[in-house]
């Protein structure tokens, strides 16, 4: 019931804000200050990476928060040769493939959980939550050994398959929360008109569920994009190493210099898609993360 209540509360709050008389200036200043502190706190580590990435290599160690001499050379450095390009392609490919498969399988399971009666449903929800809470390190040992035997070690499928397993709980969870908010009378109407379960799923429900599916896809992609432990444990070369995992293997100009500029530039590059997602889909991400979690 509360899933419906939440957006209503939000609308009420907005309506109230609109009808309120103009705020006293002092309150405005204190809210503004609180907002500014929050924004500064979240942005300064990100700005620091940007600053390092744009510093000219000769000024990297000046400790200045603002680049004294701007340059693109760190970026041109990492895009020269395949040390970063190949992992970046791996990250994009593995992320996209995992996301598509995970969302498709998750949509099927979440529809069943939200709409169909069948024994074992509660068990499925419990088990997928258990997996979401699993300490990944517990699986690194066995997966490492299994993948070596099966020849999956250091390949794309070797990462995609575990990513599927760990993103499926997230997908099922978020999607079933969304599916519960769909007006199901439409389904009844379709049933009356003689549509089969399968037709109802494909022609009525799936289009209505599209926003939830998009949100889930973003969250799953962000999970795969972020993942580090499996990415360094189940790969050994750039054949499948993803961008976060490859950054630790960057080499400096000589073996004694630590490649700060290259790492900072790579970190900025892999942050760009996240910033774009957050800016465009912020409302959806908030809804997706909160809808499944605590209301009930």
């Amino acid at each position, binding site marked *: 019931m509360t899933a419906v209540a939440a957006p209503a509360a939000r609308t009420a709050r907005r309506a109230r804000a609109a009808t309120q008389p103009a705020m006293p200036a002092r309150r405005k200043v204190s809210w503004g200050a609180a907002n500014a502190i929050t924004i500064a706190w979240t942005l300064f580590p990100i700005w*620091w990476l940007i600053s390092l990435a744009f510093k000219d290599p000769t000024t990297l160690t000046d400790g200045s928060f603002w680049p004294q001499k701007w340059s693109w050379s760190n970026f041109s450095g990492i895009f020269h040769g395949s040390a970063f390009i190949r992992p970046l392609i791996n990250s994009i490919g593995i992320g996209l493939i995992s996301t598509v498969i995970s969302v498709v399988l998750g949509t099927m399971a979440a529809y069943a959980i939200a709409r169909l009666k069948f024994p074992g449903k509660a068990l499925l929800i419990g088990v997928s939550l258990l997996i979401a809470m699993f300490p990944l390190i517990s699986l690194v040992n066995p997966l490492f050994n299994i993948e070596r035997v099966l020849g999956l070690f250091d390949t794309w499928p070797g990462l995609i398959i575990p990513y599927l397993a760990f993103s499926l709980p997230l997908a099922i969870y978020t999607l079933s929360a969304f599916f519960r908010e769909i007006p199901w009378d439409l389904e009844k109407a379709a049933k009356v008109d003689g549509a089969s379960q399968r037709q109802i799923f494909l022609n009525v429900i799936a289009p209505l569920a599209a926003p939830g599916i998009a949100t889930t896809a973003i969250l799953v992609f962000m999970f795969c994009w972020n993942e580090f432990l499996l990415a360094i444990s189940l790969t050994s070369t750039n054949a499948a190493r993803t961008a976060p995992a490859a950054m630790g293997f960057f080499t400096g100009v000589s073996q004694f210099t630590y490649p700060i500029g290259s790492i900072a530039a790579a970190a900025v590059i892999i942050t760009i898609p996240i910033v774009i997602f957050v800016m465009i889909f912020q409302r959806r991400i908030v809804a997706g993360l909160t809808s499944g979690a605590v209301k009930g």
Partner: protein
Amino acid sequence: MTTVAAPQAPAELSREERRRLSEATRAERRFGWLLCAPAVIVMAAVAFYPIVYAVYLSLQRYDLRFPQQTHFVGLSNYGVVLSSSIWWRAFAVTVIIMVVSVAIELVLGMALAMLLYYTPLWRGLVRTSILLPYGIVTVAAAYSWQFAWTPGVGYLAGLLPAGSAPLTSQWQAIGIIILAEIWKTTPFMTLLLLAGLTLVPDDLLKAAKVDGATTWQRFTQIMVPLMKPAILVALLFRMLDAFRIFDNIFILTKGNNGTGSVSILGYDNLFTALNLGIGSAISVLILIAVAIIAFIFIKGFGTAAPGTALERR
């Protein structure tokens, strides 16, 4: 609203009733299982089979340098781990990081949730900036903190007395790890608390205000009790997540100078010591620790297991 709720699943059926299940019900069951099957197969293959395999490996002497000497050794790997001061130090570091970071995140997350919910200005901007740490790749953020605290490079290291290298001293490094963890994961806490905050009825707060309750009273007497389920679930999620901390430590200190968590120890045992038996024993112990934390929360505090909350709806 009741039209939204899924119809209740039938209670336990007697054998006779089960025989009378209509063809449509049976078809619905089959379709439900069919839809869930692929997801179940993937999760079972990647999560459950390996766990069983990890338990099996943990009972073997299995050193990747001497694979032909692999044999069954019973519980002796567990004995080795549990009697080692290295394990207990990693365990203590993990618990300290978990408790301190989650405690601070709860306070900070609550403040940010209030800010997001009540701020009359720049709402979209604040929301975007709070989501950024959640979305950013942990490794990228960890490098930012590492460079910031590296003497001769970072702006933060410059604030410290000359000659100090905070990332090489145990307690300072743990402090930085906690800082990085808080920065990265407070947004998640914030969002979970925000979901709880939207469930507090505005009328109740207004009524209390009319009755003369102070802001603090309204917070502790109305908001916190009503938000308790959300708070407990947020704490549970974040504690389980913090217990498996790996990325931040791996980048910031590699676990050197007594800053390694249990996850770092498990990783090192596999890839540095190449000892699958010991590594698997550590894996199983971490899993047990996580299960204990979850059990305490669900039984002790009455946290609704999130799955049951989902079912109830």
